[in-house]
């Protein structure tokens, strides 16, 4: 088993959905039950493979690439078919393979208009391949291909099964993302050629950057390009405007996948590619990323307060939450990036759940207009409480998953990595902390208006408004359980991510400047951006003093 997993595990996990797609293509469109079954079995099979991977995963060496495959793929451009997972990818892959079957279960009996389960499920499975592949890819070109692979299915999911304004929304989503990735591609290529790396494999590139020393200016430009590409996907302010539209119009399952997994592709890109390969540029960009992150936090929250549509509100809350993730990343510390990984998983579960709930509310009330809703707790008490729990999780209540993404991110901003301006980040910390209040504000306000009070007259005796159905329970229970489990025992994620995050950060970023002797500093040979003075220890002391003050 182990050997088989070692060589084929990731490939199987990545491409099994395509096998499912192939089977479904052969089944006529009107045999809906068979389609559902094939899709579910496929996604469960992928989940099973992933769980086996988790079991075989060497927890002691999360920093090491495991189940790695490395074959030449496109010889002319030195691109490899290189897959592998470490502690950063694994939680995200698990999140993905969890969400997909749940989405399939959730839509079991109510596919959005215009129905057509065959096409809908095929798109979901294609998406799964893209998402898993992105998290597993270890080669820049391969990563790019998978990164883009998710575009079309999501585009059509929104465009065909979406709400009334779906054409505009889907197109916007598509254009934004492609714009980012086009520039991102240029950056990738520039990186490859300026470094003269052997191949597009991440480690080769990182080594090449370290060895050949790409000029600072070039690094900055390349990082900027990647930032644009990943930042749009995240989405970072001011590239976020596609998100509310896409979420609002997307069918429930689309929103869930979009929120739970797709947004993570961007942040994952930062953690996996931009920062490890270009640490020096990262240091110089960090304050800007941090600034956009906190602007996103406040801005997203303020926008939430102005919303009248439940789904749109949740969508804007994603902007704020991903701001926390980005803040964690921008500190360039082990702590901050761990927080980001946790934030990604937590946001995936929580916002995914919130979108599920919004979908179920929509299905019962046929509207998401907040002012028309109310008294959910009276008419569907279980759903109301689940909603309450998710809201609490989303606003970062300790004991639930959201807290572990938010609090460590704020914490890490107090003491960012070497070379990152400390005072600036402390300001960010305070702003981000204010953001938590706003988050509580809009979320509780939402809870109050949706769940509390008495049902409005138009829905008071509506027989359609029933409590949580069986499919909903099946789809939600695992997510709720995980929200609580991770909240109580965050080590579930941290244990996986910590080693890998630590290994992904450049030594000069993480070394404690105040404890460094002159010799050690010299031996490290850090560039000036890290602000580690070589020769005398005073620079470090000054920094330390600043940290103390």
């Amino acid at each position: 088993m182990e050997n088989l997993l070692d060589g084929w595990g990731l490939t199987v996990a990545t491409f099994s959905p395509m096998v499912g797609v192939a089977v479904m293509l052969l089944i006529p469109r009107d045999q809906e039950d068979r389609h559902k079954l094939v899709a579910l079995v496929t996604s469960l099979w992928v989940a099973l493979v992933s769980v086996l991977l988790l079991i075989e995963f060497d927890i002691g060496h999360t920093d090491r690439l495991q189940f790695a495959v490395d074959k030449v793929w496109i010889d002319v451009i030195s691109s490899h078919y290189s897959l592998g997972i470490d502690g950063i990818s694994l939680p995200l892959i698990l999140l993905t393979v969890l969400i997909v079957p749940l989405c399939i279960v959730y839509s079991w009996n109510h596919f959005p208009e215009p129905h057509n389960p065959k096409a809908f499920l095929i798109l979901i499975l294609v998406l799964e391949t893209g998402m898993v592949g992105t998290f597993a890819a270890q080669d820049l070109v391969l990563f790019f291909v998978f990164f883009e692979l998710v575009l079309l299915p999501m585009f059509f999911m929104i465009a065909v099964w979406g709400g009334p304004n779906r054409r505009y929304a889907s197109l916007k989503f598509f254009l934004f993302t492609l714009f980012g990735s086009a520039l991102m591609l240029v950056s990738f290529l520039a990186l490859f050629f300026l470094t003269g790396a052997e191949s597009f494999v991440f480690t080769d590139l990182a080594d090449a950057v370290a060895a050949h020393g790409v000029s600072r200016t070039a690094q900055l430009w390349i990082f900027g390009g990647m930032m644009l590409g990943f930042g749009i996907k995240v989405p970072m302010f001011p590239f976020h405007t596609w998100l509310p539209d896409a979420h609002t119009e997307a069918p429930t399952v689309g929103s869930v996948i979009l929120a739970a997994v797709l947004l993570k592709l961007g942040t994952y890109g930062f953690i996996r590619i931009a920062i490890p390969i270009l640490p020096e540029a990262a240091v110089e960009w960090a304050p800007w990323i941090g600034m956009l992150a906190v602007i996103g936090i406040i801005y997203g929250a303020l926008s939430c307060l102005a919303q009248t549509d439940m789904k749109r509100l949740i969508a804007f809350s994603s902007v704020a939450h991903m701001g926390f993730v980005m803040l964690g990343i921008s500190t360039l510390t082990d702590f901050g990036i761990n927080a980001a990984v946790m934030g990604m998983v937590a946001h995936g579960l929580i916002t995914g759940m919130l979108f599920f709930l919004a979908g179920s509310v929509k299905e019962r009330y046929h509207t998401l207009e907040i002012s028309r809703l109310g008294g959910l707790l009276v008419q569907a008490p279980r759903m109301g409480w689940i909603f309450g729990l998710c809201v609490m999780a989303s606003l970062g209540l300790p004991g639930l998953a959201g807290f572990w993404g938010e609090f460590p991110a704020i914490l890490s901003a107090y003491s960012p990595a070497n070379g990152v301006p400390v005072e600036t980040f402390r300001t960010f910390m305070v702003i981000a902390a204010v953001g938590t209040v706003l988050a509580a504000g809009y979320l509780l306000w939402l809870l109050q208006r949706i769940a509390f009070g008495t049902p409005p007259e138009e829905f008071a005796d509506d027989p359609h408004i029933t409590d949580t159905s069986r499919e909903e329970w099946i789809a939600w229970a695992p997510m709720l359980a995980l929200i609580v489990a991770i909240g109580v025992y965050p080590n579930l994620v941290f244990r996986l991510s910590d080693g890998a995050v630590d290994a992904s950060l450049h030594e000069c970023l993480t070394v404690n400047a105040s404890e460094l002797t002159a010799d050690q500093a010299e031996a490290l040979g850090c560039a000036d951006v890290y602000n580690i003075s070589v020769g005398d220890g005073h620079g470090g002391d000054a920094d330390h003093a600043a940290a103390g003050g």
Partner: protein
Amino acid sequence: MTELLTLAASTATGLPLGITEGGSWLLRNAWLIPFLPGLSFVGILFFGKRMPRGGSELGVAFVGLAFVLSLLTAAAWIDHRDNFEGEEVHRAVAVAVAEHGGESAEGHADEGESAEGHVPGHPSLGVHNTVTWFEMNDVAFTVGTLVDGPAVMMLVVVTLVSLLVHVYSTEYVAGDRRYTHFFAFLSLFSASMLLLVVSENTLQLLVSWELVGVCSFVLIGHWWEEKPNSDAALKAFLTNRVGDIGLIIGVAILFFTVGSALPGQFGSFSIAETNALAGTGQLSHTALVVASCCLMAAVMSKSGQFLLHTWLPDAMAGPTPVSALIHAATMVVAGVFMIARMYGVFFEGFSIGGSSINLMALIGGITTLIGACLAFVQRDIKKVLAYSTISQLGYMVMALGVGAWTAALFHLFTHAFFKACLFLGAGSAAHAVHSFDMKSDMGGLRKVMPHTYRTFVIGSIALAGLPPLAGFWSKDEIFVGTGGWGLFGGTGGNGAYTFMLVMGVTTAALTAAYMTRCVYLTFFGEFRGHGTPHESGPRIVVPLWILAGLAIVAGFGNLPKGLPLVPESLQERFGHFVEPVASYFPGISHGTPSWSLATASTLVVLSGIAVAGWYYFVKVEAASKAAGESLTELPDGLTTKYPLARMGHTFLVQKYYLDHLYTDVIAGGTKGPVAAAAYKIDQDVIDGVVNAAGENAVKAGNLVYHRFDQLVVDGIVNNSGRASSGAGGELRKIQTGKVQDYAAILFASAMVLAGVLIVIV
């Protein structure tokens, strides 16, 4: 002696933390106490609806068990405090120790003196027990228990009040549609509160801090069908969140500041380490000041201190048992407890012990006065008690601010009993009359509700602070602790905070007066409501009596040193067992009790009672008789709610009664315009600020969203799209369809390109 030991230890084996990993089983396994109600929460959640009594039996049983365990733990602690001899935990610290050596020696000189009373060799080590929660960057984040005096005291108080409230609630909320939920969240609250109390590190503290907040949110909004209730719940949660900004930032600052003093670790949440390092002066003073201010913000919100207190009266929208448990006895004192827990930080950060007035003492002082004034003008009995709670919490914070640590915690201890007693009594009365409005729906209840009446009066006297009831002793200790009493023998202590003493004593008078008013309005006169009220059942009355009993006797727990007729072994027992004498606790000095101060404060209280009593029991009673109905104030008195509208009338009245009501000038004056104005400020300005902040946030949100997001950010994108499309439209016009135009373009392009290239090449 201790001083030498400390110094030697810090150079040889690192910094002593004042904690031990040993101790009796009970002390090491205090996690069981929060665990039990936690279990009950899960149990009620999943099985409550299917149980005969809707899950309440689970709650009562588990909390009862926790109470028993707490008592046993307390017993174990009493033994441990004096008899434990075990190894103390030391922590290696950064090289910077030597530089600050001198300072720390000074700091400990005080401690040495003050700690002389304790027997050397019994270092009163806190019992520390942790497990790793998660690990990051080679730093283990732990969760665990730190059991010492304050923790044990809180365990007992919380479990006891919680148990009584559980029992009380089985009758009070009987028949409620969410009976099961109510008990589930009571249990969850108890668990969270107990977790907070035993927290070993600030992260755990933060977690439980938020958890009690959310329980409070759920319970305040228990009857969420009515909007005011959910509004109150939201307000409570949001106000607390504002304070939590401070907590988060403060904790973060401390985390890294401590980390900078610990080699090979970038941070630490450990409370013992933080305090110990702060106490030895190894942490940057600036960082401590900032951290203290930030944490103070959290205290202000959680413990209803002035500026962020407005949520607490609104929180009375919740069921009365909840108000008693959460908003009087336990959760609201979390802030006070947090200061007590992190005293090393605050002591250094606010330089407590000098005589300069610090932020904490000032906020406490202001709060205590403001709260007391506001309590005068309430019609709602629970709001009277709520403002009273604010005022009493102000006492505690003020006490901590002046260095009277033990007094503050002792007051916390006694206050928990008499205030819970009062709340539950109020609940009992309200249960009978189905209203909380003293003026329109109460009055004369002493005849029909004798038990409630008696316990309420006992609680009131304890609150007012008449000897020998509990409130007197703890209040007196606070006065002593201010060190501001210079007459007939000084009181010493950590400094001379005369200003705080004045504030405290003024409040004592006000407290006595408003409680007299409250008692009169509720229990005297004639019944003004509807229906026939009758005494509540045993499940309400028994807890009332237990609490009343405690309100009488609790004060004896800490009889002042040197009190005649009392054996020395019974003096200052509370202080002895509760106040830590360990490296994680700063060396504080205690004031000397003074007969003159005690006498003076008693007189002040009596005069407060007398003035209010005379007004109500004499004047109002007489006016009622004259009017033939039960009045709540003099028909032409000063207690008009809108002084401006009746200014002329009031002016006349004042003049007319000036000779009769000579003391009313003070009492009535305060009660009338000042209090009304204060209330107005409270409602309009401070609350207004909070509400306006909320509204403005929404407005800002609207602005940002509609003006900026939709127009500018989105606009840029859409407009660039539109511009592209427009450009496309313009370019399209080239395509005339005429072949010769095309040929012209072709040729012209070729010529232009050739020309340009010829020039540049």
